[in-house]
């Protein structure tokens, strides 16, 4: 369930990130604190953008950094941060980004259900606006608790 992943430990609002790398580090650290990933995975998420490009900016204003499970992923995890000042990843269609969702998955398909739920929430413009303007963690958790 998405609600098991998106919780008080994995959500932060009004984050100050100085650039896209910083945003990934902050989001990644929330997963690292939960013990799901290590520093190696955070570095891999950043390296992936440098190597392949800003394809992880999946919709206007929304990035979903992730990397290969072989970089020490111990479980399914998702963190969500919203930024005070949007950052640029270099994606011509979807920059600037103010919602960053770091994802870790152990293998293909084990996160299909959670991503389906995420799509339901973020496919709705009004939800996206509410997430962007939320000032408390609870406000964001409330939006996600309404899924289904």
């Amino acid at each position, binding site marked *: 369930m998405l609600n098991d992943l998106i919780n008080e430990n994995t959500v932060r609002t009004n984050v100050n990130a100085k650039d896209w790398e910083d945003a990934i580090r902050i989001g990644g650290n929330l997963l690292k604190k939960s013990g799901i990933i290590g520093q190696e995975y955070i570095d891999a998420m950043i390296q*992936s953008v440098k190597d*392949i*490009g*800003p*394809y*992880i900016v*999946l*919709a*206007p204003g*929304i990035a*979903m950094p*992730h*990397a*290969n*499970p072989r970089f020490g992923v111990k479980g399914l995890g998702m963190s969500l941060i919203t930024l005070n000042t949007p950052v640029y990843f270099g994606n011509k*269609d*979807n920059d600037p980004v103010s919602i960053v969702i770091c*994802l870790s*998955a152990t293998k*293909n*398909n084990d*996160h*299909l259900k959670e*991503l*389906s739920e*995420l*799509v339901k929430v*973020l*496919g709705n413009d009004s939800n*996206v606006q509410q997430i962007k303007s939320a000032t408390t963690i609870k406000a964001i958790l409330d939006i996600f608790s309404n899924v289904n």
Partner: protein
Amino acid sequence: MLKVFTVCPQGLGSSMIAKIHVRAILDKLGVENEVETAGIASIVGENFDLIITIEELKDSLKHIDPQKIIFITNFFKKSEIEKKVVEKVEELRQSGRDI
């Protein structure tokens, strides 16, 4: 039967989200389908009717017939993917493909 690969560098993120949408769209159109996610490296030698992917992989897919590729920029809104997939299915049907 329409065989589709949703492709991204890892086969975990955008491809997984695309798969969720594409399956639902094809089911709604009544097109029998098999939709699989794939990393860019794993489609070599595979048979397929359509690839759904991101612009960043354009160069890596140069060897593939451009008619078989759909590029997506917004993965959370179903509307962009739906419009492009519906167009492609109509094209295939007009060319005599029984799907």
